[in-house]
């Protein structure tokens, strides 16, 4: 009886070991990519579109057997952290990424949280891809941050110039939330407008939790600017401001230098949003490839609905993966990653034609610390964005 028990125990241990060890021997390695950004509160939409892009792409890669970097095949695991748009939480999030052995992080989504994670990222060797505009994050001596989108100081001048030349805009007013991101974007817009010779009639602010914008918009409407710029406006706020301004009788043009969402504009402002100009996602129907179409299909299937912002946010992880494929040593060494950034040039899978994935930013930052994506300026009409013009940064 004693022997039978021993035999059973030995069989159990052997079975457990074989069950536990066999898959490890055959499985792909895991490449962890982090997200540190805002996924709750009023700005949740900014971070959630990042996370969903990462999750959709990671699942897609894993479904196809993983990604080959050097001689090793990796499955991708996404590790996420909600900053709640709070600088302390952001720093904690970046420290968690370090503890998890992660070297590549997407986010944060706002200026203060991006600044907060910088010391940790630089000290512990993390490359991070913020959606925040302060130039000091991307200019030397900083070298670990890579801007994941087009900055307002890049899109603003292009939009104002286009509107000045094509729509006869001569005067301009700015309206921003009373918080650092939006105010710094407003300041950048004012400088760009003045440089183009436009008359700045107003530079107003509203409390970021405002829901009824009539009081904030009333004084601007009375000034009748040719163009009203909503600096750094969140996707959920833009339709409320547009609606308030139009209902109060404003007939001029309106624009934003941040990406917006067609569904939210339609839902919140309806026809009143027609003619609203914004920086579109970098993969509008006219220029997107079959792979981008497939990405949108998978994203919609996984998450129920698609975000136009994701047209831009799909790119950050693709840049990370392509850079790692180009230089496998970078998998645990961000200095190798930085070296490869200067020379990376691979086909852009999300666009038609022979467009390339190449880091940019030399003009704005003096070094290549920005993902190269087309700058697509769009106009909202009847529920969808129509491309006004496409240009490039750098």
């Amino acid at each position, binding site marked *: 009886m004693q022997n039978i028990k021993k035999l059973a125990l030995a069989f159990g241990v052997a079975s457990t070991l074989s069950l536990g060890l066999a898959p490890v021997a055959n499985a792909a390695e895991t490449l962890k990519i982090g997200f540190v950004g805002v996924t709750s509160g009023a700005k949740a939409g900014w971070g959630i579109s990042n996370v969903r892009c990462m999750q959709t792409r990671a699942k897609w890669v894993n479904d196809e057997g993983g990604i080959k970097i050097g001689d090793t095949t990796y499955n991708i695991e996404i590790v996420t952290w909600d900053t709640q748009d709070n600088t302390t939480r952001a720093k904690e999030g970046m420290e968690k990424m370090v503890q998890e052995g992660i070297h590549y992080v997407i986010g944060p989504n706002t200026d203060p949280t991006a600044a907060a994670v910088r010391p940790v990222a630089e000290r512990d060797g993390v490359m991070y891809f913020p959606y925040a505009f302060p130039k000091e994050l991307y200019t030397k001596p900083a070298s670990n941050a890579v801007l994941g989108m087009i900055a307002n100081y890049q899109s603003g001048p292009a939009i104002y110039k286009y509107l000045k030349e094509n729509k006869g805009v001569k005067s301009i007013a700015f309206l921003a939330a009373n918080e650092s991101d939006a105010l710094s974007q407003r300041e950048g817009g004012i400088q760009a407008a003045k440089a183009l010779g436009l008359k700045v009639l*107003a530079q107003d602010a509203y*409390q*970021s939790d405002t*829901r*009824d914008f*009539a*009081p904030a918009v*009333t*004084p601007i409407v009375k000034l009748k600017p040719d163009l009203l710029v909503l600096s750094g406006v969140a996707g959920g706020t833009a339709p409320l401001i547009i609606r308030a301004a139009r209902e109060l009788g404003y007939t001029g043009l309106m624009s934003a230098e941040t990406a917006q969402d067609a569904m939210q504009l339609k839902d919140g402002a309806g026809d009143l949003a027609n003619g609203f100009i914004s920086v579109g996602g970098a993969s509008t129907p006219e220029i997107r490839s079959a792979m981008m179409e497939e990405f949108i299909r998978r994203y919609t299937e996984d998450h129920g*609905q698609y975000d136009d912002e994701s047209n831009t946010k799909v790119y950050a992880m693709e840049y990370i993966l392509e850079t790692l494929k180009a230089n496998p040593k970078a998998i645990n060494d961000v200095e190798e990653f930085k070296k490869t950034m200067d020379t990376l040039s691979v086909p852009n899978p999300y666009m038609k034609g022979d467009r390339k994935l190449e880091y940019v930013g030399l003009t704005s930052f003096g070094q290549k610390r920005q993902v190269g994506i087309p700058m697509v300026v769009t106009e909202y009409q009847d529920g969808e964005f129509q491309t006004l013009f496409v240009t490039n940064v750098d």
Partner: protein
Amino acid sequence: MEQIVVNGLYLGAQYALIALGLTLIFALMNVLNFAHGQMYVLGGYMTYLVYGKLGMPFALGLAVSALTLLAVGAVVEKFLFRPVLRKSARDESSMLLAAGLAFFFDSIILLLFGQKQHGVPKIIEGVQNWGDFTVVIPNDKIVVGVCTVLMIAAFIIFMQYTKPGRAMRALAQDRTAAQLMGVSADRYGMLGFALGAMLAGLAGGLLVATTGVSSGIGGSISIKAFLMVMIGGAGVVPGAIAGGFILGMMESFGLSYLRAYGDITYLVIFASLMVFLSIRPHGLMGKPWG
């Protein structure tokens, strides 16, 4: 000037309606309901579903918002706040519970409705324009404004002239004396909490018609509601109404007249409130109500 006054009155009416439920719950149970803003959001989404998604009448959407939040409020009071208040005399216990509830609702709402801002079709088209853009007000805002005032009036009448209203006022004035006179603290406590939640839901449902609804706005709405309650005096219904209108007017006038001096409107508003509260910590009308 006329437009600024109209903007301020409309904003004030919205604020007052939002603050009413919060002050009622505070008066009855001495609970700072941090989840008030989330209840507002839930009410907004109920109307959005019924009116915006299913295409049913707006009034039905409001009724669904009201009933849903009435039920949510009753359940939350009976199964969460009542046991906690019975077992713990410390204010922190109920505050922590309310804060936890706020996070819970935030997460549930985010899961159910996503992160996007949602709006509904206009309940009535058109804009009233008096004196060649001297005063402009969209028709839907007029309807919402009138409904808001009617709801506030109905609430005051209910509290003043009905038996449950009198019972709740008695509980708010002196809980022990009211109980000795035969008022059931459990029954009217639950009714009061449910009514407070219902008011939040009604405000959310009503305002979805003009400002839409979004999952992340609950926290900031709670803070603003606290502000109004503190201006008027915690637990005082007329105080919450006054607080709402004062804040609405301050915002409307500040945004028009202080803009010339830079982004100081809200700085001035909050600094003024700090000075005011340091002079009169119980707010305009203090506690208890009567």
